[in-house]
């Protein structure tokens, strides 16, 4: 271990640069979300834009901050694949909520 960090001095600087770049991306997307929240009227398009921006933010947090982007492929899929169940639950219960509304 002691020999590894000696010549990683430059790699560290590069990593720090990537960290701050990710921070600015997250900040700018959040600022854009605010701008959209007060300029667009409520519509499916607005919701879709928000969901899309949230997924981009999630990608940067999980990929860069949690370092998942740079892990083994098998690890990436171990984490990502179970999330399919969440998408399924979301779709199923959204439809369910809509039909509860219709029946009320």
């Amino acid at each position, binding site marked *: 271990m002691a020999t590894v960090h000696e010549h990683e001095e430059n790699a560290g600087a590069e*990593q720090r640069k990537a*960290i701050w770049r990710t*921070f600015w991306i997250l900040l700018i997307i959040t600022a854009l979300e*605010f701008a959209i929240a007060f300029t667009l009227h409520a519509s499916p398009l607005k919701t879709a834009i928000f969901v899309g921006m949230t997924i981009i933010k999630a990608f940067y947090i999980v990929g860069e*901050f*949690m370092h998942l982007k740079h892990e083994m492929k098998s690890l990436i899929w171990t984490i990502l694949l*179970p999330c399919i169940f969440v998408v399924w639950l*979301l779709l199923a219960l959204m439809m369910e*909520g809509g039909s509860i509304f219709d029946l009320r």
Partner: protein
Amino acid sequence: MSATAQPNVKNVWLGGVEPMKASYGKLMMWIFLVSDTFTFSALLVSYGLVRFSYPGYQGVVADFVSSPTYWPIPEKIFDAFPFFHGVALPLVFVGLMTFILIFSSVTMVLAVEAGHRMDRAGVEKYMLWTILGGLAFLGCQAWEWTHFIHGTDNGTVIKEIVNAEWVQRTIFGANLTENQYGPPAFADFFFFITGFHGTHVFSGVVLNFLIFYRAATGMYERRGHYEMVEKVGLYWHFVDLVWVFVFTFFYLV
């Protein structure tokens, strides 16, 4: 860590090596976070279900008034800011909380990076900033909950049937059964989702403090690596990630 490299192993899944190039502890933190993802998804998805089962507000957004009969517009509810009483600042406070949490995520990943270089002072410095960010977020949440529970100056007038007669009264703030901002379910989800997230932030701050203490007393330096910072860092980033989703689905949409 480096003792696990075995060049002769043909099948990496037979044990003795790390097939995913991540230590046991880190892998288990990831698996735990997947299970925690399910818990938070269940809360947010059930919010979606109940939201879709209620009618939305019809009419001009500027004329919005709270009523238990339809779902509120979040930006009209969360428009208070400390020391700016009576000034409508929609979502500004939530925006501040989002900024605090993203920033504390940055200082956390900087602490991890310092750990890779065995930079003990760097780890200590950035862990302290992360702890500070976590505490600031918890303080903001305490203020927001207090405001939400106590309500606005005028409250909301509701009509209900008591002993077969229509009775009119004003309710202020919200609890689990009464809510001046909209249907009681709206307040229930507010308390459960932000409360469950706040509990995670709290335990994250406790873990971060433990890591700071152990780094400051030189435990990781003696151990030869700062991997514990990475593991707790994963948890802390997850807390930030959940807030990104809560922010979108509870406050924006």
